[in-house]
């Protein structure tokens, strides 16, 4: 069985405005995650953890190397293909919830399905969104606006939104970074449960040892190099 996520010799540089000298974020990154496996990437601030996660999630392109996800070379994807890939294969949970303030919690969860890449529409979409919200413990908040719920609830809604298209890969970027301990623990538990029950491949970037400890593997990114702890 081939790896679900496979990074080979991946590097990322940022060009300076003058273009003369580049800033290397990381280089020679190799990472393999099998389907259903979970991993955490830890490291100091500015080490490029989120950038690496974005490269995996096709939110960013590497400067070099190869990124394979679900047997597809994602660095080669065009804009439309990349969008479809993100929509159908990847689910994101960010440090900030990024819920649309003009939509209710239920609607926010349904938003990814409206991009038009999948077949989930109408009643089935709504039903799925309601089920997900029930799963994350927000069935009582379906018709509330983001401004009307707590930070922890917002982040759980964001998790539900990430799952609406049933992605195989869930990427979480500091998912508990802006939560208090109680909410952070609850969210960590939720992510772990979802990983287990849904067989998701989960890659999380975190400073939190609590989150990292719940992952199958921990990688440390420091000085541009990724090393398994």
């Amino acid at each position, binding site marked *: 069985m081939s790896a679900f996520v496979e990074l080979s010799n991946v590097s990322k540089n940022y060009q300076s405005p003058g273009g003369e000298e580049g800033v290397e974020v990381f280089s020679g990154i190799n990472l393999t995650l099998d389907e259903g496996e979970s991993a955490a990437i830890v490291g100091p601030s500015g080490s490029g953890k*989120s*950038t690496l996660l*974005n490269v995996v*999630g096709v*939110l*960013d392109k590497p400067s070099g190397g190869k990124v394979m996800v679900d047997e597809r070379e994602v660095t080669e994807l065009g*804009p*439309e293909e990349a*969008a*479809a*890939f*993100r*929509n*159908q294969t990847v689910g*994101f949970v*960010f*440090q*900030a919830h*990024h819920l*649309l*303030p*003009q*939509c*209710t919690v*239920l*609607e926010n969860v*349904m*938003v*990814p399905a*409206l*991009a*038009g*890449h999948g077949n989930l529409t*109408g009643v089935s*979409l*709504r039903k799925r969104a309601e089920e997900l919200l029930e799963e994350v413990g927000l069935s009582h908040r379906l*018709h*509330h*606006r*983001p*401004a*009307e719920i707590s930070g922890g609830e917002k982040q759980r809604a964001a998790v539900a*939104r990430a799952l609406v*298209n049933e992605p195989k890969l869930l990427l979480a970027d500091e998912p508990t970074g802006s939560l208090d301990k109680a909410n952070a623990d609850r969210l960590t538990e939720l992510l772990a449960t979802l990983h287990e029950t849904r067989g998701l491949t989960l890659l999380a970037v975190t400073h939190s040892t609590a989150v990292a400890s719940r992952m199958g593997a921990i990688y440390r990114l420091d000085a541009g190099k990724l090393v398994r702890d």
Partner: protein
Amino acid sequence: MTLSGIVLRNLRHYWRQHLGVIAGAAICSMVLVGALMVGDSVKATLKRLAGERIGQADIALLAPDGFFREALSVDLSRDKETVVAPLVVTRGNVSLPDGTRMARNVQVLGVDERFWKLAPNPDTAPDLSKDEFFVNARLGSYLAAKQGDRLILRVEEPGLFSRDAPLSGERDNKFVSLNKELGGVLGAEAFGRFGLQGNQREPLTIFVPMKTLQKRMFRSFDEESGNTGFANFLLLGRPGGEAVQLESAEAALNEAWSLADAGISVKELRDTPAWSIRSRQVFLSESLRQAGEKSALQTTGVLTYLVNAIAKGTPEANSSALIPYSMVSAVNPSKSNFLPNDLKDDEIVLGQWASDDLNASAGDAISVSYFAVGERRKLLEKTQTFRLRATTPLPLKVPEDQESDWTPLFPGLSDAESCGEWDTGIPIKHEVRTKDEDYWDDYRGSPKAFVSLAAGQAMWGNRWGSLTGLRVAKEDASREDINKTLRSELTASEAGLLFRSLRQDASAAAESPIDFGQLFLGFSFFVIVAAMALTGMLFAFAMEQRNRQAGLLLALGISRKKVRRLFLAEGLLLSMAGSGLGVWLATLYGQTTLHLLSGEWSGAVSGATFDFAINPASVVGGLCGAVFIALLAMGWATRRQLRAEPRELLAMGETFASTAPRSGSSKSGSGKVSMRIALTLTFIGIVMALLTDLSGPGASMVFFGVGWCLLAAGLLFFRAKLSKAACESGTLPDAATLSRRNAARRSGRSLITAGAMAAGAFLVVGTGAFRKDSSSISSTRDSGTGGFALVGESALPVYDDLNGLEGRELYDLNSTLLSDVYVTPLRVREGDDASCLNLNKALRPRLYGVKPSEFSDRFAFAEGNWSTLVHDVSEDGSIPAVVDQNTMLWALKKGVGDLVEYQDGEGEIFQVRLAAVAKGSMLQGALYIDEKHFEEKFPKQGGYRSFLVDSPSKKMNEVSGHLADRLANYGLEFRPASERLNELQEVENTYIAIFQALGGLGLLLGTAGLAVVVIRNLLERSKEFGLMEALGYSMSALRKHAIVEHRGLALWGLGVGASAALVGIAPMLFGEAGQKPGTGFAWLFAALVALSLFWTWLAVSLSLRTSRLSTLRDE
């Protein structure tokens, strides 16, 4: 580093963001200063034209109804510096010898070299020694004549007195023709624009050597001496020196004028030791009568009249014994020494010759038949019966070439060799016997009978006077005494000599009743608002991108006030830079506008062309105004930004986010209220529309109101829709719902965007409802033409009724053709054109005398009607007048009941009251009073010069051509009444077109504001787009959603505005009158839609050009 240093650094660093602000301020300044420049240019042009019109003349002395001695000009010359130029001013026709071209109603100026001393440039004076004609540029161009061509000038030989008056001589006018070579064409510098009336249009003028004109025009004026040195106009000026003051000129005139200037003479009687005060106008004016009677002179009034018959018996007796055509004199019996002192008013004294001829004796009934002049010079034969009281001896024989002491010089009578040569203007129906001829040979016009003065005045008194002479016994006064006494009793104005301050009038007239600066500012309202909004939005936008900077400055302890000042100082510098640039653009804007006014928009200014003039005060004022407006917009747009706490500003980043709506908020309630009001307004609009006749009067106004209702309703619907979208929750069926929800998120901004588009579209398209189409001009009596088919004007007065048999015979009119045609004549007192065609201020509008009964039911009135002229008698003696509403409001700037001052024929001031107001009529430009009042005030002015013709439309052209042909000598010209009305409406239409054009320009500019709104919305939601992208939305999908969302705003606004406007112009589109608007509004609307879509697309493309994912990374 200082705070001002920060301002400069900011300007340098953010210069790209500020370009838009500078552009907005520049547009605002361009429009403001440009509009003021247009106003200044119009003022400067009118001032120049006024200067060219009067040259270096300061004052004019004119005799509106007569002529004075040319020598008066010499008598008035008090110093060497003052030039007094005499003129003969009249009107006539000028044609080429082959008749291919003829200019009617031309201003004819008989002038000598003194006239050009007062020209704008005296060095341009032509050489008059060759006895040639000169014409001004307009007439030269009209005739296409060049130097050396021969021209034929035809003018009227003026009568001694009004041809309206009885016994005024032959019925038809006398004309004289002059055939001369054209010496050249005179430009404005050479007085080519000379004229009394303030008007931007150059008159048609021909200049004739004065002596030449005088010799022909006044050849019969003074048959005793053969003198032809008369004039009716003097120009006074002091070239290069101080202006001649009116007071000093009046003082000089009071010393210089003589009785001869008023046509008054003192004749030494032959048969009686007495003097007789007489007038060239035969009948003594009321002022002369009063002057004679109230002076110390012992005067005896005499009224001598030509009667048709003196017969024995009553009229019923049908006596065959009658004496035809005799003079009868009326005198006060107590003041005569040959009549019974107690002669009663029903008694008559016959001369011995008449008594013998009639074989009458004391106590016999004697009837006297005579002609009185009725309306329109109609002769009415009347008969009065007297009882013969006594007989007087035969008069003394009258020497050859002389006239009886009793009889004034009646034209056509006194100079007749025999009775057969009489040309008195009355039909001769009685046989003139041999003995009558013998009497004429021996006694000329010696009266054959006498009646009391009271009886005579009751029969023959008229508006010209009730005496033909005043006798003064020689033993009571010498000729000099009489002259002196009359001169002291009479004023120059009573003698018909009126001064007019040309310079003062020209200066006042140059003040256009319409301030074009303000007018164009008003027209540019949308451009200014659009530029203001653009400036404010762009500045706010630029400032919001610097929230962090503002937050930092506040966090560093700089006061809120100071930070605000810092930002506004930046704004001030930007607005100054933009406004400065706008001043340069304003010169282009002003010149373009003036160019359009001379071309495309010439309908608004009657074809005037303007000089471009810059008034520094206007530039500075406009510049300051533009800076202030831009600063105001910036201050208002950024008012909320600095109210936030430093922490908030630091956290906000580049957007000034507002709190997101909560479900179930008050928006739902306000949405329902909006919906209810919208439904109510729609209902009201529909009811109003259903109750109004599309083709009826006032339909435009009602439907414009309905349009407003629907516009407000449409916007309230939109508001309700936004409120509903903001509050709705549940399923998201498609991405469009998300777009709608997004629009509802900034409901205020969305509503303003849609509302501005709607209001602009409505106003620009809807004002078309007030356009008037020439093809729809109705011919009904209550329409703007009053139901008249033709309007005409003649250069010379026509005295006879063109509807009567006599008039039609006199002018050889085709009675068959004119069988169903009626010509309504109007008396005209020249004055300023107070219509919208004249850009100058009308000081004394033209005055028309009308017969109200001929106008009943004609034209539509906002106040009163024609009967007001008869019934609305005021205690203050003011004369009621009909005035057109536009003339009253815009040219005169007066209201109903206001007074307009005039001078009567003797210089007395009288007031004309605006009593009745006609709406949308061709009556514009003048005041209309009852003919009876006109005659009272201007008794010496005879005839009619304006004509309104009722004619079947199918033969209108034939009638017009026939009348113009038969009365060609009078310079009579006709044009369709609809054309006249259309010419006036064209001004209104052009103003609407200008408003639509400039409003449209503002609206088009406003669509650029839409782009700013779009960019601002999208940038505020960058993270949202980043997230959507992360969730799998492609950039093209996001752009599509953004376009759909914002396109909806623009299209909704435009749709609501255009729909409401279409209802507003429904009477034009569907009314029976068929007033079809042009396709301009449709093009404008299409341009608006296209531009809105373009700006939306451009803004979205620029804002969402690249991935927004980076906004997520910032976290």
